[in-house]
């Protein structure tokens, strides 16, 4: 009776389909993104001696972002005049795809990885490189001054952090001798890379916060200077689509930081590997959220100068240290 439907059922119940749809794929990305939005508001509120979301559920407003999602979904979609409607709608929705594609590269447990490709780490950094271009496209298409300024800031900001980000990841590759994320985790079974790569981990954390456009470096959407920058014109659910990738990128970058510096899913075998992976990721996420509520926003010229002088110099010093650790003192 199920004859014609059998291939469909086989596809739906195949492990890869389950991983793409359930965990670590789309369903978990959507739920974790929404929960991170709640967590960020709660952490920021506690730092600022406020309470934060409270009423949206019995458990301290944990459903606040779902309530926001329902509210924003039923608002009017309005495209301002003289804007490029195609790119205006395409840019934030493509941002969601980029955020979801990043999570697919992360090994959450042995075998629990959607795409175990040989060039996992450069692929992750290459996919994330597209997001400032989308911000510029969104800012340009809105045909409004503040979004356009925000988009240009995203472009200039990218030049400041991109090279230190790649060079700090190079230290990990020199230690591990592989680009595959699962093999990088396996290479850390003798010791986490954060100890030999402490400087590289610091640079990676700072530049990834700049990549995510989070608060010390949130120049493209500085709400007190250029009133949300490139997101200013987005109505209703498109605003949610513009905000959402930020939380998905936070999740993906924290998982990547855990994978390449904190030993990934490795840990005592009392608890399953997935527990270690997610708990380490949560620690990194809360660290980044505390950075957001602690530091003031930098200026664009400060960020460019710091990225091109301090961070780049430190990244090159880190490569030198890693060279000495791997190859040894030069004999010539």
């Amino acid at each position, binding site marked *: 009776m199920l004859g014609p439907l059998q291939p469909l059922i086989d596809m739906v*119940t195949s*492990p*890869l389909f*389950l*991983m793409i*749809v359930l965990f670590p794929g*789309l*369903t978990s990305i959507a739920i974790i993104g929404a929960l991170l939005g709640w967590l960020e508001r709660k952490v920021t509120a506690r730092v600022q001696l406020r309470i934060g979301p409270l009423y949206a559920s019995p458990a301290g407003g944990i459903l606040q972002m779902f309530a926001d999602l329902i509210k924003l979904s*039923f*608002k*009017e979609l*309005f495209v*301002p*005049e*003289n*804007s490029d409607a195609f790119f205006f709608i395409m840019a934030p929705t493509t941002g969601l795809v980029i955020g979801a594609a990043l999570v697919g590269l992360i090994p959450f447990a*042995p*075998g*629990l990885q959607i795409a175990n490709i040989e060039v996992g780490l*450069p692929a992750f950094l290459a996919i994330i490189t597209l997001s400032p271009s989308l911000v510029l496209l969104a800012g*340009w298409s809105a*045909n*409004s*001054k503040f*979004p*356009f300024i925000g988009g*240009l800031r995203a*472009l*200039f900001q*990218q*030049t*400041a952090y*991109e*090279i230190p980000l*790649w*060079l700090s990841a*190079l230290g990990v*590759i*020199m230690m591990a*001798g*592989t*680009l595959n994320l699962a093999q990088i985790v396996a290479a850390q079974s003798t010791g986490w890379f954060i100890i030999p790569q402490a400087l590289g981990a610091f640079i990676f954390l700072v530049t990834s916060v700049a990549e995510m456009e989070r608060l010390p470096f949130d120049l493209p959407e500085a709400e007190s200077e250029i*009133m949300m920058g490139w997101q*200013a*014109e987005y109505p*209703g*659910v498109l605003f949610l689509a513009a905000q959402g990738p930020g939380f998905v990128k936070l999740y993906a970058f924290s998982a990547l930081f855990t994978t390449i510096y904190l030993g990934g899913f490795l840990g005592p075998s009392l608890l399953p590997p997935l527990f270690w992976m997610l708990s380490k990721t949560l620690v990194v996420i809360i660290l980044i959220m505390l950075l957001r509520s602690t530091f003031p926003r930098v200026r*664009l010229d400060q960020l*460019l*100068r710091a990225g*091109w*002088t301090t961070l780049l110099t430190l990244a090159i010093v880190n*490569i030198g240290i890693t*060279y000495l650790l*791997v*190859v*040894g003192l*030069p*004999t*010539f």
Partner: protein
Amino acid sequence: MVAQGIPEIGAYIGFLFVSTVALIIVLKLLITPRDPRPTPEKKKPFESGQIAVGPGRTRFIIQYYPYLLMFVVYDVIAMFLFAWGLNLRSLGEAGSLPVLVFIVVLLIPLGYALHLANHRENW
């Protein structure tokens, strides 16, 4: 594989979730309010209550342009270092010497370019 331990009901939960999202999108398109005749003020770009004047796509900020030029050059060079870093153990000291010379040679123009770029009176 851990994923094979996920029971079959998981597939249906995931399928239910995705189809619920699709249903919400369709419902949303039907329910979302539409303004048949928006006023001219509503169609204007939002500038915190000020009346928008002039084109939205304004002039380009030129003062950080040298950083863009440097980025085009040095981002590609960072890529070349990945090939070296990946094979560092097999290359050893003898194979790494040209790359280290390459890095040092490239740092000299980088320093000069930064000297020019950081002094904005040049631009």
